[in-house]
């Protein structure tokens, strides 16, 4: 008997906002903090916490800099992050397929 698809879910990634952050980052070379906040409708504090968790898990890289005098934070997905996102999406699709049958 094959393993249940929920076994493929990653605790760090399987959170809707973190999935959203990884999905956006996977579609770009790098994405700015403000863009993520607007796109996911999160507060600065919430977004910051999610990014820290993903960064500590090695799924995101963070790059801090300035544009003029304005501080800007850019995040980019790592190779491990791409693999974790792909695995999570596969597990979700398997869950949906299992539910449909």
């Amino acid at each position, binding site marked *: 008997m094959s393993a249940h698809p929920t076994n493929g879910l990653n605790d760090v990634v399987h959170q*809707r906002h973190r999935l959203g952050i990884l*999905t956006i980052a996977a*579609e770009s070379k790098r994405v700015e903090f403000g863009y993520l906040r607007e*796109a996911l409708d999160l507060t600065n504090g919430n977004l910051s916490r999610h990014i820290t968790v993903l960064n500590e898990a090695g799924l995101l890289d963070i790059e801090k800099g300035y544009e003029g005098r304005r501080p800007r934070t850019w995040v980019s997905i790592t190779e491990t992050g791409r693999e974790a996102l792909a695995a999570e999406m596969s597990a979700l699709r398997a*869950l949906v397929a299992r539910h449909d049958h």
Partner: protein
Amino acid sequence: MSDSPAELLDDLRQLRRKVRQDRHGHAFPLLLFAGLILVAPVLYGSDPWPTMSPDGRHVLIERGPFEVFERPWVRWGGSNVLIQWYWMLGLVTCFAASAWWYRRRADVAGIETDTRGYLTVAGAALVGMVFGERLLSHIVSATLDTSLYSRPEINLPIMIGAVALSGTAIFAGTRWRRLRVIGVFAAALSAMVAFATIAVYMINGLAGLLIIAVALLALAWAERSLLIAVTGVLFTAVSLHANLQGVGLLVGSSDTRLIALMDVAPPAAVLIIGGVIALVQSRRAA
């Protein structure tokens, strides 16, 4: 976003679509390349006088550094080095400018398109067509005493082999992480050989159009844009026609500038139409 797997997947799909729309910025490269193409005919009429040998009896024809950008039927009097340098520097500048554009756009939009693949493919096409074709032709000429153009039974197997090798290297590089660096290198190298064999048939000297076509198809993939993909395919078709036959000689004029303009006008028109549509789309989205 919702928590049911099906709804979550649907939300992520919509999010991905929105992100792709937000980072699209291809109006600039399309219009930039159209400008590069439309200015080129101005330089096609400036053939220099033939260079005489010291004894005054022979005409020395300089091949120039980037012969693939030369129109063979207008260089009877000597090589037009100016147009060769125009295409070479113009293409490099346009590729660099489009990479700068996406970087600058990221500062405004907050999200940056990854142009590394686009630049790698464009670089492979440029090097393969400009230097690879010359090297390959020289090797075949020196070893087999024949030209690649007249011997498709030699050229086509090299082309098919190079394309197959490039595809295999891309697959291996994406499938196995530790093979990524060598995969990218092998894919770029074999792609250069493939482009070199294609350049052999670009007898109208408009290989620059095909280099742009290859770059646009890579950009369409990077942008995941249907508009730029359709524009790229149409541009490739008219660019191949311009290189293999063209409409310039149908005009019946001896003006080399007019002939060149007629040949490059259809590809440029495709880019202008695609660029204007992209511009309208981005204005509407804003």
